[in-house]
């Protein structure tokens, strides 16, 4: 298996009056079709690492390669383009656009990328949502869905452009146990059946134990 993500001494320091180190000297490689947990106590830098891997934040030192490409020289537009085509995010809170329906939310990344015609986008969004058991809720807005349903819509949205890498920040953190299990099963299925790479930040050590491997972060470093 080839590495989809590689980091070398990746460091992120907030330039405050007293500099705050979020992530320090993290060197890792995540391969294709891996299901990786990032664990650690609160404030250890798990989410910060995820935002760096997802090109939402820039490291203050170290190197990051994503899909074999060095992220350092990418400008803001290139980083956005990479997020759009190669990455899918799932956050702890669903982060859906409240004015749009479930189907429209899933269509948004596709419309931005513009690879498909509108009817194909609609069809794909419907298929994705149906595959996550949301076939009857396509035209509902987020406030008409339960927490678990919203999170499944968010997972469907992350897959809209068929990216190879899904980054999930506490995807089950705000869900009850039943919904958590459903979402976990979906993420696992993405790796096993659809060949995606999933990196998920989680507090749940039981859940992390069921993944391919765990990266444990303490005080911004791999512990």
């Amino acid at each position, binding site marked *: 298996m080839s590495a989809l993500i590689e980091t070398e001494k990746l460091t992120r320091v907030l330039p405050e009056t007293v500099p705050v180190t979020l992530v320090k000297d993290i060197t890792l490689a995540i391969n294709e079709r891996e299901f990786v947990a990032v664990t650690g106590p609160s404030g250890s830098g798990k989410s910060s690492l995820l935002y760096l891997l997802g090109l939402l*934040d820039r490291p203050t030192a170290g190197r990051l390669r994503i899909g074999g490409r060095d992220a350092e020289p990418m400008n803001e537009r290139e980083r*956005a*383009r990479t997020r759009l085509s190669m990455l899918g*995010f799932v956050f702890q809170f669903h982060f859906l*656009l409240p004015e749009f329906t479930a189907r429209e939310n899933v269509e948004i990344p596709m419309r931005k990328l513009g690879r498909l015609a509108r009817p194909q986008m609609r069809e794909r969004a419907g298929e994705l949502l149906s595959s996550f058991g949301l076939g009857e809720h396509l035209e509902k807005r987020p406030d008409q869905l339960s927490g678990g349903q919203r999170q499944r819509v968010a997972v469907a949205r992350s897959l809209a452009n068929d990216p190879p890498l899904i980054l999930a920040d506490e995807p089950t953190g705000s869900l009850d146990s039943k919904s958590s299990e459903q979402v976990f099963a979906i993420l696992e299925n993405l790796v096993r059946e659809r060949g995606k790479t999933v990196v998920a930040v989680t507090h749940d050590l039981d859940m992390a134990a069921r993944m391919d491997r765990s990266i444990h972060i303490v005080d911004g470093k791999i512990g």
Partner: protein
Amino acid sequence: MPLIFDIAITHIAGRGRQTLVAVIGVAVGVGFSIAMAALMQGGQDDFVRQLVDTMPHVDITDEQRTARRQPAEDAFATVAISGLRPRDDRRGIINPTAATSWLESWIPGRFAASLKTQGVIRFSSREVGAAIIGIEPERESGVSPIVGNFVEGSFSALAAGGNNVLIGDTMASRLGAGFGDTITAVSAEGLTRNFKIAGLFHTGTTARDEGEAYLLLKNAQILSARPNAINEIRVKLDDPNRAPAVAQRAEAELGYKAVAWQEANESILEALVVRNVIMYTVVGAIMLVAGFGIYNIISTITHEKARDIAILKSLGFPESDMRRLFLLEGVAIGAAGSVLGALLGVSMTYTLSLVRFEIAATGQEMTRLPIAWSLMHYVIASAFALGSAAVAGYLPARRAARLNPVEIIRGAS
């Protein structure tokens, strides 16, 4: 519908009441600007039209712009001249036949030669000072402001020959004379001659209605003891805007002062320019106020939609898309306000055009508000509105584009 436009519409539709207030703010600004521009432009056009209609477009008189050169100045390199005394030069325009023939050959319009002198009109025991103007009726009809303004008699009565005179109705009432009465004209040279009032005109211009008397050119020449003399050529052009060029050429060729109507009314035209500057400044101020309304709503939306900005950025929207999104929201409000404002402007302008009244005390009659219907007013007001909307939208849009999605996501977690 493009995605960004779709999101923009969703955002502003989500704040219906605030959006409506902002749109109405722009619409009122645009509507009032259009109505004000129509009224001011109408007033200006009416004023200029009166100037152009009542004045000759080019007035050639027997005066010189600069003092005549003395023969000694031509004979010697350096000359100091002192003790010059004025000469009573009453020749008028020298060789008038050649001058009028030359003008005839190229002037794009009509012209009439006349002899204008100062004198007194007497009737019964009353006297009125007047400009006594000798004219050739056939030519004068092409340039005269009085031809179509007769309350009694007609301009053609002068062409019939005889000792006829045309005077204004105000002069007639001051003299106590009426149509058909015989008045006495006294020239500056002291010569007197009787004329029968063959027409009373009313142009609405007090100075003309009260102070001008029109005779046949021959009669004026006899009255002023200046046979064959003319001292003024009045030109009406097919295109009044060509007056400065025509005046320049006529003056260069004939050597007499030729004044275009624009030059004669330079200070008035300057005042109109100043008035326009003031008008557009006021329009700009109105739009600035409307712009604050747009700024307010777009700022509120960007604040409320900070999470959406983070979502969209995490999905792969670059900063330029965020700028475009909120800029578009501002411009959409400006565009909606412009359309509504244009409709408001049309209805306000139409309502103003229906207002009728009279002002007789000033001697000028006006029976309705002068209104100018011009597409340019709508274009300018809408451009102002869209411009201020774009600026008002751009400032918060720029701020929104710079938002760090990580900070927002952390804040929400």
